């Protein structure tokens, strides 16, 4: 920051502080940094913010996790409930992800019905869980055509500073890994879930996840489409395009999405995939540390 202030101070006719410049011309301010290969928060263009994962932060939920990526904090809680299956899929349970971006996490969101962004992220997570077959829904069956488990996956954003999709997906996967459900008994139309004693391996079960997809997002800045990894809120608001690559632990792709900005070359997409492979590896070691 010091260098920018110095260079501006050198022009005698018209001077103002760096923070005024940032407020007046956010894009131009940002461009000055990018031309030097760094970002205003000190990161390189392709570096990510510090990420942490904590499991089991909500004791009343069947599974939960808290994820921090820089200034973005999300908490995911999973609640298992007994429900009636659909007529056309009598042996399949339900996965219902929902992302909540309330005014508590950022002034950019208004109270009331869910914002467009919250709905879009919920839908993206739902599709990844469903179409990449993260979990066999038949594992959630208690008694065919009578009772199944419905997993309510609620992601609450506590503090919003960009890149919500990555943070939400990590928290969902971490919470799914954390899920423990007490073994139910089915008898003549009544499902009994025993309570009381502490949860142990005998009286509960874990989910059998076939894969753990994790995502890496980038934004495209300016007309020359400079790639910025893990954007924060300020970066998201001055860029138009976003690329997200979701990869499982074997390096197979689960989702690629490129929305907005001008057409990008396929070599740029390849670059994103390569970078996402490394990042997903890093994320997995962070998740395993706990």
């Amino acid at each position: 920051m010091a260098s920018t202030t110095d260079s501006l101070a050198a022009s005698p006719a018209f001077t103002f502080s760096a923070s005024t410049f940032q407020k007046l011309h956010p894009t131009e301010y940002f461009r000055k940094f990018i031309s030097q290969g760094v970002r205003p928060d000190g990161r390189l263009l392709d570096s990510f913010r510090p990420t942490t994962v904590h499991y089991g932060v909500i004791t009343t939920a069947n599974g939960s996790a808290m994820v921090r990526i820089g200034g973005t904090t999300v908490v995911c809680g999973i609640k298992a409930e007994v429900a009636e299956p659909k007529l056309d899929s009598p042996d399949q349970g339900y996965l219902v992800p929902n992302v909540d971006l309330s005014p508590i996490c950022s002034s950019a969101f208004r109270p009331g019905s869910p914002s467009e962004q919250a709905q879009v992220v919920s839908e993206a997570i739902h599709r990844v869980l469903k179409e990449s077959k993260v979990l066999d829904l038949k594992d959630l069956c208690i008694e065919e055509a009578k009772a199944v488990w419905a997993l309510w996956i609620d992601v609450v954003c506590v503090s919003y500073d960009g890149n919500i999709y990555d943070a939400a997906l990590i928290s969902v996967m971490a919470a799914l890994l954390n899920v423990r459900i007490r073994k139910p008994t089915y008898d003549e139309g009544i499902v009994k879930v025993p309570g009381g004693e502490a949860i142990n391996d005998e009286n509960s079960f874990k989910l059998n996840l076939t894969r753990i997809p994790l995502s890496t997002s980038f934004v495209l800045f300016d007309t020359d489409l400079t790639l910025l990894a893990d954007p924060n809120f300020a970066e998201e608001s001055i860029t138009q395009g976003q690329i997200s690559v979701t990869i499982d632990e074997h390096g197979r792709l689960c989702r690629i999405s490129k929305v907005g900005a001008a057409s990008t070359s396929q070599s740029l997409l390849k670059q994103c995939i390569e970078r996402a492979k490394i990042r997903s590896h890093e994320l997995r070691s962070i998740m395993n540390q706990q």
Partner: protein
Amino acid sequence: MSRLDRTRTSAHQLRPFFSSQNLLNRSDGSAQFDFGGSSVLCSVVGPAEVKLRDEKLDKATIEVVARPLVGLPGVKDKALEQNIRESLEPLILSGLHPRTMLQIVIQTMKDDGCILSTAFNAVILALLDAGIPLKSILGSVTCMIDAQSSEILLDPTTEELSRARSTHVFVFDNKSSVQSEQGKMNVDTDDQEAGTSSLAAVLFSDSTGMFTEQEYFECAHFCFKASQAVHGFIRTAVQKKLEKEYQQTQA
């Protein structure tokens, strides 16, 4: 290999296209686009009065409203709205109409798979019909990878999609396709080595399921080739419409 819908013979064949423009009276532009049994109607109003809350000082505000065939608009429709709006924003010369609104309404009329692609093509035809200044036109094609045979099927039906391992939606604009054609002539050998048309720039991509990097770029390649047919179709549709309008002014 014959397809499940029995009307097509090849995996890379698209369903017949159909389009008509200027069907609606109350909107400034409208178009319907069909991919076989899928059909989307789109209307465009603008530049028009903008709500004070949405007003932008340097460009037009673009609003996209998507409505499903059955039921109330849900999360899926919101995702479709966002995808279309953000892909169109760089395409529309919105700086020419500051402090106005451009409203795009998308209505699914028939659903037999590939609604997102059909909607993209309908929207661009409606924008052309409304006379909205555009940087380029776009064409969209969907493909899927079959879970059993791992074969790439273009423009799948709902029945085929139920057997998909992954689905891929691509949008290419006509600017990038011109570039890649020129590129092909110059660096033909490079292109063949890569095995994909690595020069075709992607305007929009949305893939979900399970797939490898190689499969993804193969899908991009086939969709790009097929999107050329869509581009050609859109160009002919506009040409025919203009010819008709010219004849009417002469008569």
